């Protein structure tokens, strides 16, 4: 049985099928990239999976448990974690505080009303390890608003790691990062635990080819390709979806 | 339990009295009728009313008219606030202060200069808008886009200043704006009398609603305003002078406030504390309508007018309860307002 199972997920907006019978399954250690042209329904799909919008049909199961009816945060506590396409961090807090908060939340200690996180030994150690792993140690005490965007993206990954998910949804982890710094993101992604199942949504095909072992292509809300990265560029329907959409965009402008 | 002091005794007396008056609710003229409040409309018809209309119907109609008139006055005053809050995104607690300035000016123009009602309205609106221009340039411009709390602090500060100055300049007494002969009487609607002035207020409300809708949806200025609101940098890049658009919008909003202050003065009399006294009412109306929405504000004001008026009729002693409970229910059901245009 697979770790993560999406079956026949459907969502309509005003009669338009934005997600059309999408199914996918992930096993531990999977590295799956979900790609597709603009407007293919990737964002909707992420929001359906994380629980921010309700599907019109279909089911989502995590480690054998049906989570379709659960709230977003309940899915998180069961091991389904996401990162954001545009960083969502706490501008006035430090990386150390971010990661500590994630660890405390994971361990169910985030509502403790006494004691300081930086006085809790295990927490400090783990924060140190994670920040060290991602090369953020130097920045541990700066406010997020003071650090560079590329490093904020790394912090997003650090947060995801701190939550120790079973399934991780990476929503364009390299979006907005200058070309010179994508290598650091790639290295960070390599350090994700091997048993973790990762679903990455990404535009940057270089990153997809380097990271993913499997690729799914979404177009007009439906899956049109599911196979190895080597085959995806050869697929007729994929070429049509991408080039067709470019052609359409050209004529509309 | 009751303490020994007379105060406690006094309180007990009051409570007793209250239950007594409740017990005596069904007047002796109509024995045997349940004292439930819902029946009030049908009870004790002593004087014959107009023959064609059923008594209960008369009461319902009468309340409906009152609700409409009150709601429209609310609308005329609050719509300007809806513009500043919704379109310019400023929590403008000083709105009442501008309405009050308008009222004072109109009172001054009519009573001290001896001019008529119409010129008074005109002068009040224009002069208040002119007064608002430097205030916008010097103060409001600094808080566009600032956190809500900062805006609250600044606009409360402005309100305090205006109150203090009004008190200093005009004294603490009530100021009236004498109505012209044509508006001062009552009109007999057959089943009841209504102040002519209220009809005038209703008409003003309709005119303002339509005029504003036309300005925002149908004119070049409206297009610029909406563009400036949706995306200021983009609008600026397209050649819209956003600063000017903001200044004009602010002046229009303030002019509307002054207009409302004058037209509504019969209901909300002009005195220095006007600016604070009715601030909450205006805020509630705008928020329920959804800031920035003209139809929303209209519906909200009529709804609030209806709730308030009906509550005051059926159970005046719980009028406040009804009103604020209704506010809570409506906001809970429509957290973005009845027709929120923006967040």
């Amino acid at each position, binding site marked *: 049985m697979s770790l993560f199972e999406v079956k026949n997920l459907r969502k309509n907006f005003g009669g338009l099928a934005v997600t059309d019978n999408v199914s996918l399954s992930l096993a531990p250690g999977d590295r799956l990239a979900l790609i597709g042209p603009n407007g293919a329904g990737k964002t909707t799909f992420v929001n359906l999976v994380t629980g921010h919008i309700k599907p019109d049909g279909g089911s989502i199961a995590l480690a054998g448990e049906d989570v379709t009816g659960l709230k977003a945060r309940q899915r998180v506590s069961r091991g389904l974690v996401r990162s954001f396409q545009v960083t969502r961090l706490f501008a006035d807090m430090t990386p150390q505080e971010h990661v500590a908060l994630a660890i405390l939340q994971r361990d169910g200690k985030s509502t403790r009303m006494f004691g300081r996180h930086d006085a809790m030994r295990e927490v400090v150690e783990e924060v140190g390890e994670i920040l060290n792993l991602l090369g953020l140690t130097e920045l541990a005490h700066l406010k997020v608003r003071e650090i560079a965007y590329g490093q904020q993206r790394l912090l997003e990954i650090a947060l995801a790691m701190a939550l120790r998910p079973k399934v991780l949804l990476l929503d364009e982890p390299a979006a907005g990062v200058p070309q010179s710094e994508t290598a650091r993101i790639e290295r960070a992604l390599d350090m994700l635990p091997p048993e973790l199942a990762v679903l990455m949504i990404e535009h940057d095909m270089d990153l997809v080819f380097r990271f993913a072992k499997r690729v799914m292509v979404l177009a007009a809300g439906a899956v049109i390709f599911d196979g190895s990265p080597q085959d995806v560029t050869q697929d007729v329907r994929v070429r049509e979806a991408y080039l067709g959409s470019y052609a359409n965009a050209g004529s509309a402008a | 339990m009751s303490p020994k002091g007379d105060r406690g005794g006094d309180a007990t007396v009051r409570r007793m009295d209250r239950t007594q008056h409740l017990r005596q609710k069904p007047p002796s003229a109509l024995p045997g009728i349940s004292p439930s409040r819902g029946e009030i409309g049908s009870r004790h018809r002593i004087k014959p009313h107009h023959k064609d209309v059923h008594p209960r119907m008369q009461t319902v109609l009468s309340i409906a008219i009152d609700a409409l008139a009150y709601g429209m006055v609310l609308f005329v005053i609050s719509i300007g606030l809806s513009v500043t809050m919704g379109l310019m995104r400023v929590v403008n607690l000083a709105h009442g202060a501008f309405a009050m300035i308008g009222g004072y000016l109109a009172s001054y123009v009519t009573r001290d200069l001896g001019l008529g009602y119409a010129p008074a309205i005109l002068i009040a609106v224009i002069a208040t808008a002119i007064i608002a221009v430097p205030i916008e340039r010097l103060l409001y411009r600094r808080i566009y886009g600032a956190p809500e709390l900062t805006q609250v602090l600044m606009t409360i500060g402005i309100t305090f200043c205006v109150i203090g100055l009004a*008190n200093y300049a005009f004294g603490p007494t009530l100021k009236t704006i004498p109505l012209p002969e044509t508006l001062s009487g009552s009109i007999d609607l057959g089943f009841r009398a209504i102040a002519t002035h209220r009809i005038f207020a209703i008409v003003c409300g309709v005119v303002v609603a339509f005029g504003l809708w036309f300005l925002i949806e149908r004119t070049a200025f409206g297009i610029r305003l909406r563009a400036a609101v949706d995306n200021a940098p983009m609008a600026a890049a397209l050649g819209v002078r956003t600063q000017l658009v903001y200044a004009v919008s602010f002046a229009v909003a303030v002019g509307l406030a002054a207009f409302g202050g004058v037209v509504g003065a019969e209901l909300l009399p002009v005195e220095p504390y006007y600016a604070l006294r009715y601030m909450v009412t205006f805020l509630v109306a705008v928020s329920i309508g959804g800031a920035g929405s003209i139809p929303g504000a209209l519906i909200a004001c009529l709804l609030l007018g209806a709730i308030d008026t009906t509550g005051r009729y059926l159970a005046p002693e719980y009028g406040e309860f009804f009103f604020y409970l209704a506010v809570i229910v409506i906001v809970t059901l429509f957290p973005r307002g009845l027709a929120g245009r923006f967040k």
Partner: protein
Amino acid sequence: MKRFLGAAIAALAMSVSAEAATIKVGVVGPFSGPFALQGKNFKAGIDAYMAVNGAKVGDNDVEIIYRDVPQADPAQSKALAQELIVKEGVQYLAGFYFTPDAMAATPILQQGNVPMVVMNAATSAIVTKSPYVVRTSFTTWQTSTPIAQVAKDAGVDKVITVVSDYGPGVDAENAFKAGFEKAGGKVVEAIRMPLSTNDFSPIMQRIKDSGAGAVFAFLPSGPTTLGFVKAYNQNGLKTAGIKIFAPGDLTQESDLPALGEAAAGMQTTFHYAVSHDSPENKAFVEAATKAIGNPAELSFPAVGAYDGMHVIYKMIEATGGEQDAKKAVDAVKGLSWVSPRGPVSIDAESRHITQNIYLREVTKGPDGKYINKEIKTFERQGDPGLAAAK
């Protein structure tokens, strides 16, 4: 350490009260905020008294220290009263527009050895809170009771009462009801409306529907009275012959210019009208007008303050400037004099003022301005509220 401090402060306080050449009177009232007009009247009354009678009692100079409590706020009132006693060393506390503010200061009178002269707060029970309280204003019971007789005499049998839903309003309702039913009338309905009511049309509809021949109304003086009186006219109650009876708060002199025509003919009972015809009042109005600046702002709290100062002067006389609250209060028990409002006396038992209550009608005065014209006198009225509370 603590004892040392205590002693030091006690010594400080002693030194303040020992130099008795200047006797300080602390006045607490609303000098800013929505009720600033009433505070202004306090000051006008006090200034007028001191202008007429001098700022000296015997060898002692009298100095007034004002403290501002803009709205009913007992915590602030008590803090200021305390400060006046311990810091400023006042020998007398006076003023107090709102009942809770007066109540809050009563517990410290005994310990501070300071009498309190209430110049406005109108709930009956205040005088029972401390033996050192004397009141020179009125109570709502006192002014509302006689109008019941007026209503009955006017041939009205059924009355609906409409009051603002707070202490004085409830007092007025109870007072009228007690008086009217004693006279053989009937209160068919009693409506209490929130203080914040702006639109009175629905209330007027209720009055019409009640079938009562008249309405008894109590609203605190100020902005809302205007809306109420206008609604009464515009909703056709006046033309339908439904009479209105009220204590004088509804037609306070400072509201009359605004009420104008709408209030014409309205009958109210109160302890004071600015138009009262007597030499004492002429002198008072002249002095008070000078003090307040604008004659249109002069109103009833001024006379409460004026007579309050009279009582305080008598107290200072009796004690020779020494700080002795008991002696001071005892000295004015039973004191009677002719006030601008007419003959008055301090009831020895309740320490509340006994005075005439006048029936007045709003009419145009000789100069074309609206006044409350006295048309009937109810002589020597005590406070029925205290008896009712017992």
